[in-house]
C-alpha cells in the first residue's frame, strides 16, 4: 500500500453542452495500488477515463502521471507514457489471431525472442494459451475480454485502467480475473470501474465513489458500501443522467 503517488488528479472539470460530466474531481493513486471506482450511471466515470487516456481534453484541472502533466495530451503520447486501457466493450482485432494481436501489442518495445517470451508469458498468465491461433472474432465475449487484457499487459503499463472487466464473464472467469488483478497490483497501479459489488468487495482495498462528476466518498470497501450517502446516490436522488 505504500509508495509514491503515480497519478494525481486535481480539480478536473469537463462540460458537454450545459452538463458538467466532471466537476472538480480530485483523485490520487499510489504505485502498485488497486483501486475500485464506483458510482451510479452518469457519475462521470467514463468521462474520467477518457480524460486519463487522452481521448478527451478536460476543460480545467490537472492530471499528473509519473510526475508529468498529461491533461490534454493525445492518446498516442499517453499510451507511450505508460497508461493502458481495457475498454467496456472489448476493443480488439477481430481479423487477427490472438497471437498476432499480442505481437502487435508488444512489438513496439520488444523484438525477436524477448517478444516471443513476453507473448508466451501473457498467454500463460491469462490462461488463454490454447486460443493462441484462433481468430479473435470467433471467440466468446469473456474470452475477448481476456485477450484485450493480455494486449494491455503487453504494453507494460505503469497504470492500467479497466472499465468493467468482468462484464459478460462466468464465475470461473471472474475468479480468474480477481486473482489476476491482485497479482498485477504487485507491479502496476490499477483503477477498476465496476458495477458488480460482490466483485468490488472481494478485490479492493480502497474504493472511490463518484457522483455528479466529483468525489463523493473514499475509503475501505466495507465502510464505503455501508455509507448512507453512497446508498442514497445509487438508489437515486432523482436523476440518472445516463
Amino acid at each position, binding site marked *: 500500500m505504500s509508495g509514491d503517488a503515480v497519478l494525481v488528479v486535481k480539480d478536473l472539470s469537463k462540460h458537454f453542452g450545459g452538463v458538467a460530466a466532471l466537476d472538480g474531481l480530485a483523485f490520487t493513486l499510489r504505485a502498485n495500488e488497486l483501486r475500485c471506482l464506483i458510482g451510479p450511471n452518469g457519475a462521470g466515470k467514463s468521462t474520467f477515463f477518457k480524460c486519463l*487516456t487522452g481521448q478527451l481534453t478536460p476543460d480545467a484541472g490537472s492530471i499528473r502521471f509519473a510526475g508529468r502533466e498529461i491533461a490534454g495530451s493525445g*492518446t*498516442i503520447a499517453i*499510451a*507511450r507514457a505508460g497508461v*493502458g*486501457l481495457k475498454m467496456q466493450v472489448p*476493443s*480488439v*482485432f*477481430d*481479423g*487477427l489471431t490472438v497471437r*498476432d*494481436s499480442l*505481437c*502487435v*501489442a508488444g*512489438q*513496439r518495445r520488444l523484438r525477436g525472442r524477448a517478444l516471443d517470451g513476453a507473448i508466451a508469458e501473457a498467454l500463460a498468465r491469462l490462461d488463454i494459451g490454447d486460443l493462441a491461433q484462433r481468430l479473435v472474432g470467433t471467440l466468446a465475449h469473456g474470452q475477448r475480454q481476456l485477450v484485450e487484457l493480455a*494486449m494491455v499487459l503487453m*504494453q507494460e503499463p505503469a497504470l492500467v485502467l479497466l472499465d468493467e472487466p468482468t462484464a459478460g464473464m462466468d464465475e470461473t472467469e471472474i475468479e480468474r480475473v480477481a486473482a489476476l488483478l491482485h497479482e498485477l497490483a504487485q507491479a502496476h497501479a490499477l483503477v477498476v470501474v465496476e458495477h458488480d459489488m460482490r466483485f468490488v468487495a472481494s478485490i479492493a482495498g480502497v474504493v472511490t465513489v463518484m457522483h455528479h462528476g466529483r468525489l463523493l466518498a473514499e475509503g475501505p470497501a466495507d465502510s464505503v458500501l455501508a455509507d448512507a450517502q453512497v446508498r442514497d446516490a445509487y438508489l437515486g436522488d432523482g436523476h440518472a443522467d445516463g
Partner: protein
Amino acid sequence: MRDWLGHGIVVAVGIALLVLLPAQAQLYTIINATIWTAMATLALSLGLVWGYGGILCLGQTAFFGLGGYAYAVAAINLGNSTWAVPLAIATPAVFAAALGYFLFYGRLGDVYLGIVTLTVSLILFKLTNSTSGPEYTIGSARLGGANGMPKTPFLNAPFDPAVLLSPDTIFRVVLGALLLCYLFCLWLLHSRFGHVTLAIRENQQRVELLGYDARRHKLLLFVIGGAIAGVAGIGFANSAFISPALFSLATTAQVIIWVIVGGLGTLFGPILGAVVVQALMSWLGTLAQVHPALSRLDPNLVLGAALILFVLLLPRGLWPAVTSLAGRLRRGPGR
C-alpha cells in the same frame, strides 16, 4: 499470407514468363502483355493500399497518371530515360504524401476519403484535358491536351541514351518491376510495419491506445502505394501512350473492378483480376469481329454486369476462391 506455396508458384510463373515469353510470341502480343503487366502493377498498388491498409482510395489512377506524365515530361526534357524513371516514381510519391497528410491527419472517414481521392483524379483529368494548345508545355514537352503525349521516348539503357531498349527487353523490365514490387509488398506485410498496418485496418482506435501513430503508418503505406502506381505509369508510357485517359473515371472504375474480381485482401488477387478482366475484354473484342451483331455490344455492359455479379455472388473474388478450393483439395476428402 502464410501460404508460401501460393506465393512461390506466382513468382515462379512470373519468372518463367519473363524468360520465355519474348521468344515465343509476336510483337503485338509482347506489347499487349507489357500493357497488361503495367495495369497489373497498378492493380497491385490499389490492392496493397485498400486490401491491406483499409484505405478506400478511389483515385489510385491519380498516381498512375502522374507517374506516366512525369516520365514522359522528364524523358523528353532530359533526352535520357535514366533519371526520368526515379523522377516518375518520386512525383506521385510526393503527391501521395501531401494528399495523404490531408486525408489521414484530418481524420476523414472512409467514405469521404474515397470521394476526395476520386475527385483529385477527376481534377487531374480535367486539367490535363484542357492543355491542348502549344502554350501548355513543361520545358520542351508539350502536354497535348486530350491527345496526350504519343511521342514519349522509350526506356534506354541506363545512362546511354543512344541505346533504346527493344520491346522484348521493355517487357522484361516491366514484368521484372512487377515481380520486385510484389516481393517488396510481401516482405513489407510480414514486417512489424505490416503487422501494425493490418491491425489498423481492424481497429485503428485500439492501435493508437497501444501507442502507435496510426496516421503515420497509413501515410507511409499510401506513399508506397503511390510509388508503385508510378512504376505502373512508367510501364504504361513504354507500351501504350500517355493521355488524360489515365486519370479518367473509366480507368478508375476498371482498376477497382480488377481488384474486386481478383480478390480484395490478397496480393496476387488484384494482379489476377487485372489480367483476367483485360483478357475478357480483349476476347470480347475479337468475338465482335466474328459475330457482327456483337460489335455493337458495349464493353461497359460486360464490365458492369461482371462487377454486379461478383459483388453479389463472389464477393471475396477469384483468387481466394481458387486458394480455398486448392486448400480443400489438398486436405483431401472427408475433412
